């Protein structure tokens, strides 16, 4: 079975003002795979993630040089609307941030503004079921989402992301604010979801990257040091710096 590319970056440089945060990043993201981006703080992994859905456009004085391909189309061109990109490439953030609306509305709103005309109740139920949240909240759909627990909120955010039917889901340290059980539930969810979506996850947690991802890319100071199958990287990395990082010999 041949894996196709869902997204790809080619020679991507990224600047915050005059500071270069990414250097010549070329990375492939396989469809229906989970790719983990790891590296010490400030290495550029979150920056790269936010380039993939043009979220960095919201920050003033930033510049991207190079290409980012989504389904073989460069999303950093004039005629591409970032709003469309963000619909096809969804995002889940580090701190769970559901809208201060009801659980139902959280999922329905995104779908509605993107022109969804079908059965909203069904969409909400399906999305929540896919995130293993339905049973826990089916009686609380009208309740304010902020009353849910942290783990539930994060799963709700994932459900919200998939309700608009993206192709790719970006996750920026999605479990770093959660307890181990919620973390485990979300990791299971990621493994479930990758059948339908391509997932790219930034994580600080080495073991999580090992548990959850198929491919891993190791970043350092804005450079990719090594990228490849997770099993290879964790069993026998090619680069000394990779080995030092994943063994925790520097952080």
């Amino acid at each position, binding site marked *: 079975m041949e894996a196709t590319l869902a997204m790809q970056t080619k020679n991507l440089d990224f600047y915050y003002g005059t500071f270069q945060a990414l250097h010549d990043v070329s990375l492939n993201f396989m469809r229906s795979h989970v790719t983990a981006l790891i590296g010490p703080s400030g290495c550029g992994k979150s920056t790269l993630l936010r380039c993939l859905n043009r979220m960095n456009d919201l920050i003033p004085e930033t510049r991207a040089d190079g290409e980012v391909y989504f389904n073989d189309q460069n999303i950093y061109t004039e005629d591409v609307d970032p709003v469309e990109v963000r619909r096809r490439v969804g995002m889940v953030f580090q701190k769970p941030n559901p809208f201060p609306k009801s659980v139902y509305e959280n999922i329905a709103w995104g779908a509605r503004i993107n022109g969804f005309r079908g059965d909203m109740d069904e969409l909400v139920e399906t999305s929540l079921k896919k995130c293993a949240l339905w049973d826990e909240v089916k009686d609380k759909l009208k309740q304010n989402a902020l009353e849910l627990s942290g783990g539930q909120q994060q799963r709700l955010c994932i459900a919200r992301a998939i309700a608009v039917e993206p192709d790719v889901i970006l996750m920026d340290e999605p479990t770093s604010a959660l307890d181990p059980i919620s973390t485990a539930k979300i990791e299971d969810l990621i493994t479930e979801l990758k059948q339908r979506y391509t997932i790219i996850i930034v994580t600080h947690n080495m073991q999580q990257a090992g548990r959850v991802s198929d491919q891993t890319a190791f970043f350092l100071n804005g450079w990719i040091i090594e990228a490849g199958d997770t099993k290879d990287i964790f069993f*026998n990395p090619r680069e000394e710096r990779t080995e030092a990082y994943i*063994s925790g010999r520097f*952080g």
Partner: protein
Amino acid sequence: METRQHFSNELHIMYQDVLQMGTLVEEALRKALTAVTNQDYDLAEQVKQNDHQIDTLQFALDKRCTEIIATEQPVATDLREILVAMKISSDLERIGDHARHVVRVMDQLTDSVFRETLPRFAEMTEKGISMVHDSITSYVNHDPDQAREVARRDDDIDDMHRALYKELLAMIAANPDRVETGTALVFLNRFLERLGDHVTNMCEWIVYAKTGEHVELNKA
């Protein structure tokens, strides 16, 4: 200050344990050889008792390795080194058993007919002891090349084993009333050849620890 100081300390202790086990095994083999050469039954008894010590050390080493894996989540090279430590410990324990086999056939080796084979056995044992020593050294020094070299020495032991085997068969044929003694010595020959194989096995794992590749160093 290196990070994961605790982890480093634990690994250091693990290597010490392996070294110590190696030392105990070498000592056992040497003592066995001396006991046989000098007909020292007290020493022979010591060898049998000390085997218990080797077994205890193996359990402790395995336990320590398991604990490190559980608590430190090692990956890549660290993980391989720890797994190899466990593999080596089981090989070393078997080698320790061979020392017992040597003293068990003490009487037979002093038999008038078979006495002349003693120097050959001594040589094989010495070779084995040095192989054990050097392989452990290559492990703690993370030196796969040395490990490979040690593995090659197994050929010598194999050659000696083959020659001795033919000789023993001839001796048994010539002295049919000494079959029991002869057979015991054939077994001993076998054990010493196996010792070499065990060390070669260890060397394969030592190469694996460093490179992640599994190599075949045993000749068929």
